[in-house]
């Protein structure tokens, strides 16, 4: 792929019950990203907004944020899906030769709607929507299938929650930093077994924006901040119906990771990747995603977390930001993973910095039980 870089990022604080409107949240993130990139709004090449009509309670939800995202007087478009997908489309547009850069901005206010009913709308109205499944109950089916097959324990999943909530203390954007123990997680109320309250992500509002630039544009100005080079991106969708998938292993993630790694020249992810931000909507998911990403063998996710290698200070710290377990504005969360990876590679991650990080992975999911996965490999080294 041709070279392109992320030259600016901006995030709002993630929290519940934000009083800003969609446009105000988007404006905040976009303004921050522009400042971060040393750009003014007139420098924006084109815009990709990431919105969802259901979460916003508004058809043509992109309309509400078009002006705030900088789309006035220029080409703009809208992806409905996770921010990692929107960013990928933004990258494609930047590489098309028509624009020098793309502003990608995602927003959501999950606390405004009825999240369970909204997620239930992802199920097939002709068949199983009427069962009333939502994100938690459907993910629980996947969690159990995974854990049962490989003997992964609830305690191992709980470690993910402990790690990520603790990491969140170092991230001023995070919604839910917590000092908890495995015991706290185990004793938290059961939601849908084996998922307990402290295994789930919070209901968060917020926005995130990134600026993707062509090589020429990224190098044009004498930038105070290092451009972060995009080395590989890929996404892949599994079967739709849960009964048609192998719920114990994500084939779609493996396929996406393989393609992104091939583009980026990654053959040994655990060694070559210095930091990873993955989409842990539930604690068990982080373990499953370790396996699909090739950080460990199939079924070995529980062992990997126990080894400490994905903790801060370990071989491959995962989710220094606190991850999705600490902040979950749906649709934004994948873009936030990319933004966090950028901060790491710039050395701007403050207390959550992984020292000397040169290669980062960012990951997002979309649909029921992570039907679609999108994998990004970034580096602060151009070559």
């Amino acid at each position, binding site marked *: 792929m041709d070279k392109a870089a992320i030259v600016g990022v901006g995030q709002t604080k993630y929290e519940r019950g934000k009083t800003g409107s969609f446009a105000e949240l988007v404006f905040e993130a976009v303004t921050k990203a522009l400042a971060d990139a040393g750009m003014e709004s007139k420098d924006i090449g084109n815009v990709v907004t990431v919105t969802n009509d259901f979460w916003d309670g508004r058809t043509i939800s992109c309309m509400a944020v078009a002006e705030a995202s900088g789309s006035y007087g220029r080409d703009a478009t809208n992806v409905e899906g996770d921010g990692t997908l929107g960013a990928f489309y933004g990258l494609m547009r930047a590489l098309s030769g028509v624009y020098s850069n793309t502003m990608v901005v995602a927003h959501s206010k999950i606390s405004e709607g009825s999240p369970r*009913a909204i997620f239930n709308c992802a199920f097939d109205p*002709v068949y199983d*929507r*009427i*069962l009333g499944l939502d994100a938690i109950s*459907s993910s*629980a*089916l996947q969690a159990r299938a995974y854990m049962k097959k490989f003997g992964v324990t609830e305690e191992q999943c709980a470690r993910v929650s402990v790690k990520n909530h603790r990491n969140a203390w170092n991230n001023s954007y995070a919604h839910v930093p917590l000092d908890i123990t495995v015991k706290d997680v185990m004793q938290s109320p059961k939601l*849908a077994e084996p998922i307990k309250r402290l295994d789930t992500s919070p209901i968060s509002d917020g926005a995130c924006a990134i600026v993707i630039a062509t090589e020429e544009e990224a190098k044009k100005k004498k930038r105070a901040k290092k451009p972060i080079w995009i080395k590989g991106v890929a996404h892949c969708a599994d079967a739709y119906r849960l009964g048609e998938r192998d719920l114990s292993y994500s084939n779609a993630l493996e396929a996406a990771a393989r393609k992104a790694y091939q583009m980026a020249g990654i053959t040994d992810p655990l060694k070559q990747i210095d930091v990873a931000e993955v989409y842990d909507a539930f604690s068990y998911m982080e373990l499953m995603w370790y396996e699909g990403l090739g950080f460990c063998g199939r079924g070995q996710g529980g062992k990997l977390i126990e080894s400490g290698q994905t903790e801060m200070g370990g071989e491959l710290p995962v989710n220094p930001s606190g991850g999705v377990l600490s902040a979950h504005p749906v649709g934004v969360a994948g873009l936030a993973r990319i933004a966090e990876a950028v901060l790491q590679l710039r050395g701007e991650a403050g207390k959550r910095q992984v020292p000397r990080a040169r290669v980062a992975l960012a990951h997002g999911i979309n649909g029921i039980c992570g039907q679609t996965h999108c994998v990004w490999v970034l580096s602060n080294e151009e070559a």
Partner: protein
Amino acid sequence: MNEAMFEVREKDGLLIHQGYIKVPHLWAAGEVASRFYIGLREKKILGLRCPKCAMVFVPPKKVCHRCFGELSEWVGVSDEGTLETFTIVHYSEPVLHPMKAPFAYGIIKLDGADTGMAHLIGEARLDRLKEGMKLKAVFREKPEGNYLDIKYFRPVKGASHG
């Protein structure tokens, strides 16, 4: 039509308007799903077979996602099957949930089918649910032409557990 404003609250000196949107829908099931539901009326469960992939899909669907072939070979499958995975739900969502918590969802592979179907588990001791156990469909007395014409799946009494 859609009422935008219902109730106005205040937080930090800012107003918060509450409202809801109502967009009614009427989904066409299509010929394939219609036939499935007509089968359920007669307490028969039908699937569609993909000859190329040698797979029977339950519930049936017109196109095989693996080979993209159009399916037309209807197959009757058993109303009994195996529990592949499950969860016990402890929270309440009265608008969504057909049963009161705690209750269980499962993925059940019926004998003769090659895919699992998500559904409810009823008449069961929740603490005795196990992967591999045999379940049987319980049909609704008065079918309405939807997925809950199977009320739930119940454990087969006397069957040996996996």
